[in-house]
Structures are given as C-alpha cells and as structure tokens.
C-alpha cells in the first residue's frame, strides 16, 4: 500500500465517511448516495456531534465514540450553532485529524465562501443538490488512483467550473490544459488590488476570468506541490 504524506491509502477495506448535515432529508440522501458507492457512513446532525464522534469535543476526552477510523468528512456549510466552515477549522487545527479530507456542501454557489473553505484546507466544495457523480469524485480522494488522476487533470469542481463557463468564454478544458508555468501568478488581473500573492482571496471581483481566480491559483500551486512530491517518490 502506498503512503502519501503519512496517510496510508487503503484499497481493500471500505472507506468510512462521517456525514454532517442538520437537514434530515439531506442526511438521508447523502447516506444513501454514500452507501450505494460502497462507503460506510456515520451521519450526524451537527458539527458538535461530529466533534464528539471524532473525540475532539471540549471535554478533552480522547475516548472517541467510534471504533472505525474516519476516512473523509463531508459537511453542510449552513448549520446552526457550528457552521461547516467552523467544523473544518477545528478538524484542520487538530494534529490527530487534520489529514482527514473535508468536503463542504452548500446550496449556494458563493465564490467567496468557496475560496474561504478551500483556503482553510477543504478538499472540495459541492453545490447541492448532491449527485452520485459528486460522490464518485470525492471517493477518489481516498484512493491512490484518484490522487494521480487529480494531479494529472487538475481539480474538478463541478459548479465552480460551470460558473466560470458562464463568466468567460474560455473552454472548460482550461483547468486541465494550462501548463504549470503559465502566468497565473503574475496575473494581469481584473481585480482592483495589485496583490501578487496567490493565496489572497478577492472578495467577489466584478468579472473574474478563470486564470485570475484565487481558487484557480491556489489549486495550481497545489497541483505543482503534488507533482513535485510524485517526482521525489520515483
């Protein structure tokens, strides 16, 4: 079994997903989508319960309620008391669980929100309603083949890509075909602030083109990191 950054990728066992959503309807749907995709699912109705399940709650009680290792967390963004973003932060802040990929779901396609989540370390952002193809895609995050696919093709955000299509006339393949050495970092950007860093998120620029989007730049640097890592492994 191959190792990547300290996380072992299991191919023979079923993956275990922790699903977090305050809506009962959505919990039922995501549960079913995951089960049909051969995943073990634990569905909880709040961020607080999710932390309890992981053993990360305030009682500092490391005795988690689960016996199964969690391979992926998929959470709704808008929840009362603790949002999916706050849950994401708590997971990424913990040394024990920060390696677990976290996927955010939201019914609203807000670029600033997506940026914020990706910057905080979310693996992906799915716009609801969630479909089988979304689940298949995130399942790839837990397998080695998926990792290679991702670094080859670039990260595929369904609705994000669609919204870029709407904003500019560039073909969808722009995410996969542009070379690493493209001038994405020295962007002649349409955003008002002249900031050169690739991680800064622009709060809803008027008409962003795909290459200038902070998400795009962030993912390009991730892609570069993954490819460099792979070269070292060979």
């Amino acid at each position, binding site marked *: 079994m191959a190792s990547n950054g300290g996380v072992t990728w299991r191919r023979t066992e079923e993956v275990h997903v922790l699903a977090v959503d305050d*809506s009962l309807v959505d919990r039922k749907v995501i549960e*079913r989508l995951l089960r049909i995709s051969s995943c073990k699912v634990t569905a909880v109705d709040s961020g607080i319960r999710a932390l309890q399940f992981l053993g990360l709650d305030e009682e500092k009680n490391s005795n988690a309620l689960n016996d199964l290792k969690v391979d992926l967390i998929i959470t709704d963004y808008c929840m009362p008391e603790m949002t999916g973003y706050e849950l994401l932060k708590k997971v990424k802040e913990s040394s024990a669980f920060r390696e677990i990929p976290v996927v955010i779901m939201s019914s609203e396609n807000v670029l600033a929100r997506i940026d914020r989540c990706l910057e905080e370390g979310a693996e992906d952002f799915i716009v609801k309603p969630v479909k089988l193809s979304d689940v298949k895609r995130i399942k790839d995050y837990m397998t080695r083949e998926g990792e290679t696919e991702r670094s080859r093709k670039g990260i595929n955000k369904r609705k994000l890509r669609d919204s870029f299509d709407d904003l500019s006339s560039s073909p969808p393949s722009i995410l996969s075909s542009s070379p690493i050495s493209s001038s994405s970092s020295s962007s002649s950007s349409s955003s008002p602030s002249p900031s050169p860093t690739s991680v800064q998120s622009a709060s809803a620029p008027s008409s962003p083109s795909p290459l200038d989007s902070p998400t795009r730049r962030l993912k390009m640097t991730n892609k570069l990191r993954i490819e460099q890592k792979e070269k070292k492994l060979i």
Partner: protein
Amino acid sequence: MNFAKNRTVSTVPAAKTGLPVWMMGLVADRLRADANRLLAFLFNQGILDEQFLQLQQLRDESSPNFVSEVVNIHFHESEKLLRNLRSLLMDREFSGYNKMGIHLNQFMGSSSSIGAKRIRNACFAFRAASEQNSRAGCLRALELLEHDYCFLKNKLHELFQIQQQRVLAAGARYPMQN
C-alpha cells in the same frame, strides 16, 4: 395534456385469482404507462427536475421505498415550515423577516434535494418579496407556495401508489420472486 387524474387503478389481483398471466401483464403494463405519463407530466410542467430522477436511481431491492421515505420526510417538514411561515406572517406584531428567512432556507434546501423545482422557485419568489419588505408580496408568495406544495404532494402520492402497485403486480405475477 389529458392524463387521467380521476381514473383509479383497480386493486391488483392476488396470485390465486385465476386470471391468465397475459391479463396480469396488461395490468403491469398499464401501471408502468401510468407512472411514466405522470412523471413526464411533472417534468414538462417544471414541477420536478433531474434531482428527482437521481433519487429514483438510488432505489434497489434492499431499499425499494427509498424515494417515498425521503419525500415523506420532506412533506412532514414542509408542513411544519409552511405553518410557521403563515403564523409569522399573520402575527399582529409582525417581528420581521429574519425568522422567515431561516424557515425559507430550510424549505428551499430540502425541496432542492428531492428535485421539487417549482417549490424551490416559489421559495425564491417569497424570499424576494421578503427582501423588499413587502408583507403583501409575502402573503401572495406564501399562498402560491401552499398551492404548489399541495399539488406536488397529491401527484407524488399518486406516483408512489402506482409504484407500489407495480411491485405488488410483479410479485403476484412471478410469485417465485417473493
């Protein structure tokens, strides 16, 4: 489109009716045609969208009633939300649109998850009226929402009935499969 709202499908005969298989085949065929016609109608009218089809694909032998279970949870929640919205709007000391916004978002979310396109759009209209601080507009939007909801509920219950009868018909026709 004149799809037969008033025609009720007759009770599916049990295996021991003595009916020849070809006749029971007719029943099964008619049920399938009924279901397809109803679905086509709901899609053409923009009442349902492809998310509903996605849910249908999630049914199997282990969970044949998955869709009706989820939809019934949605209906149960919807009725509570609609009641809350109405009582908030009718309240003499109208407290503002914030609480309504929360209910609306919930309603919108779960409608979209089951593919209830028209309901979701009606929620958008309601939200627009509340953003304009128009109480009259909200009342109109709520009435439309209640109407669309009732219509959808009736149609989906009809669909689920047909689907159940198809399952029974298949069982009666091929008793070995039970």
